[in-house]
């Protein structure tokens, strides 16, 4: 890989956004007020010196809530991406590489799950999960559920990639020397597929953040009083006439995070595939 200066602009900008937000969020507890601290005498205040972004309906500092919310939203985004990868990459890879019946079976599975309205899947799984996953921290629980509901684009993309890679010359050579399928896949193809995995991981993270926000917006995500970006937007809906900052800031944060992850994904893709994006049938962008 070339030095960072030669990375595509998209990748650089994306990293700045994501790393910047993550840093702000990670360091938040150190330099900000408690996001849960209720102060009924200071409700719905405009931005001021004491509260840079104002306060919400219970007098809680919005800056703090947005950044602490970032810890959860970003955390879920990354975790979900990992879970989606854990399910999607093996399935997609095997389907693409093996072809034949394996491919047919996995493709049917993908189609079936794709046709189940994802929101229902999420609602049902989230509703059941407290019973099945007691004791698991909320963030992990939600990430598991979302990962379960969101592995399809990952699988599709990996399948496409492995279909392509299957006909590469080195595979023929490896086969000629008698290597087993698994060995070929792991030793030869996976390194080459690493880039697509990174790409799809970024897009999956972006998508997960959006879905988590949507679920929080509907009241089904991480439990209160932990602030999440989606939950903050849901709060803002009541005060649609007053408190404009309540609606703008969490949304901006979401926007920045999603944009950042998307840029990273695009950037990695550009970096490793100089020909301008070959968008094949299996997509890759959620």
């Amino acid at each position: 890989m070339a030095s960072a200066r030669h990375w595509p602009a998209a990748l650089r900008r994306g990293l700045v956004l994501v790393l910047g937000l993550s840093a702000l969020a990670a360091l938040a507890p150190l330099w900000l007020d408690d996001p849960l601290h209720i102060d009924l005498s200071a409700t719905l205040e405009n931005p001021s010196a004491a509260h840079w972004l104002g306060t919400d309906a219970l007098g809680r500092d919005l800056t703090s809530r947005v950044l602490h919310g970032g810890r959860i939203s970003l955390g879920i985004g990354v975790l979900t991406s990992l879970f989606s990868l854990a399910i999607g990459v093996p399935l997609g890879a095997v389907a693409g590489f093996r072809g034949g019946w394996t491919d047919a079976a996995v493709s049917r599975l993908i189609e079936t799950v794709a046709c189940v309205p994802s929101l229902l899947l999420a609602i049902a799984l989230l509703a059941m999960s407290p019973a099945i996953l007691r004791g698991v921290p909320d963030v992990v629980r939600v990430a598991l559920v979302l990962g379960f509901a969101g592995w399809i684009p990952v699988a599709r993309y990996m399948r496409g990639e492995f279909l392509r890679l299957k006909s590469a010359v080195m595979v023929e050579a490896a086969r000629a020397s008698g290597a087993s399928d698994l060995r070929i896949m792991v030793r030869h193809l996976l390194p080459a597929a690493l880039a697509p995995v990174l790409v799809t991981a970024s897009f999956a993270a972006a998508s997960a953040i959006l879905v988590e926000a949507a679920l929080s917006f509907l009241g089904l995500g991480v439990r209160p009083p932990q602030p999440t970006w989606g939950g903050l937007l849901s709060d803002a809906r009541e005060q649609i006439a007053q408190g404009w900052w309540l609606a703008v800031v969490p949304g901006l944060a979401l926007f920045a995070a999603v944009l950042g992850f998307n840029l990273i994904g695009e950037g990695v893709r550009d970096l490793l595939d100089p020909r301008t994006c070959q968008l094949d049938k299996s997509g890759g962008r959620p």
Partner: protein
Amino acid sequence: MKQDPRRCLALVFVCLLAACAPAEGPPDAGTAAAGERVVRMHITQDPASLSLIGKTDLNAEVVGIRLTDALVQYDEKLVIRPLLAKSWEFSKSGRSITFKLRENVRWHDGEPVTSADVLFTIDKLREPETENRTWAPDLRKLEKLEAPDEHTVVATYSELKADALEAWRTPILPAHVAGRDEDLFNGEFARQPIGCGPFKFVHYIRGQEIVLEANDDYWGGRPEIDRLEIKIFSDQQTAYQALMTGDLHIMVMSANLWQQARESEHAERFELTSYKRYSAWTLGWNQKNNPFFGDARVRRAMVLALDRESFIENVANGMAHIGATTFPPSSAWAAPDVEPYGYDPDEARHLLSAAGWVDADGDGVRERDGQRLAFTLLVPVSTQQLTQWMADWQQQSWAAIGAEVTIIQLEWQAFRERRKERDFHVVAQTFHFTDPDMYVLYHSSEMESGYNFWSNDDPEIDRLLDAVRYTFDPDQRLAEMHRLQRRLHEQEPVTALFFFDAPLIYDKRLQGVRPSPLGYANTINGPRAWRWAEEASP
């Protein structure tokens, strides 16, 4: 492919759009004829059916009360008034009621109303397939229903409660029409309901409006408006906009929206008021499955730790009042000498220490016998942010006196399941009351399968609950109610945190609006008594 794919697609879309042309509805029924006195109100959802007794809810009640009369009905003070039944008498044995029906009352199609209609309605009501949850439960103890003549109905119970008349607020259906339908929900009657009430059915456009017109031959006198349009708005913001443009004349709204209305430039056109409701936001303390809430001192301490007045002022815009017990303080049943607990965190801490909960290790959370004062609060997910804000506020307030609280917020169905299984430490929910009979909430017999989810088991309370339920003499009953409230206040099995007011806004020219704790249109007066000032009909 020879053709331009874009043109193909465009053609497809045009076809799709054409295929979905709006259905030919009734001719523009929205505008009334010139000079007609119209009032427009709204409900939040389509009623499950217009059969008037099938799967009824508050929305359906609004329509039912207008279309057809019940034997009796509440007035704004929730006192039972005669309607179709001009008088009634409780038997000496105390187990039956004899109703005398008004004579010369007719259905909208001219047929006379008789006791046969009452019998038909009650029988239909009690069928499980009708799924009536409003009045049928209270008729369970009804043993026998007889009609000795065309204008007399005798109801004999195996057990008669003091509030037995409440169930007789059910709308009465015409047996000669509704009786012909096999399926009450989808039959002729539900499509074109007729009744004997002050308004007649005109039409119903699903998702939009139910239109009624005045019944000229109503026995109680023709209403002073000609047409009542009941719009359906699921969202109050939309309803508010309709109010501003004159497509609505009256509505109830949230405290936030009411503030907005007050400050808007249109405010002078409207009467901005509020009325007290008998709905309480409560906390139920589970006395059985944990080491915390079996002790009344702990329960009381939790209430003392909440600065309710401040919450009302700063978050609820002053649109609520605090309660001492689940008996609504604005009702005639409230005991004047029972004062709600105020905000006293020091006293709360003192009570907790007295009950043995002390913070020995200085981590901010009290312990007793190695058990931390850490419990869970079960809350339902709600479209109203207020639900969540209350939970957050409670959590912080209790942390201040040394308790560690985890909020469990579940979607409604999951919430009900958990509550039914009594799998919670403290549960938050709303209750609506229409009568002072709190038996199901507190009686020990309701612990297993009834509504006494918090396993309250106090013989004194049991005795008083029985007394309130079965005492018919009003003064004696009131005395028992007061005793019950004193005991409840001491024991605090359920905390009535807030009784929320309902902000009401309506066009200034509309007169005769008399809201009740049940709403502005759920009692004997309501649209029937409304009129436009000086014939200034908009």
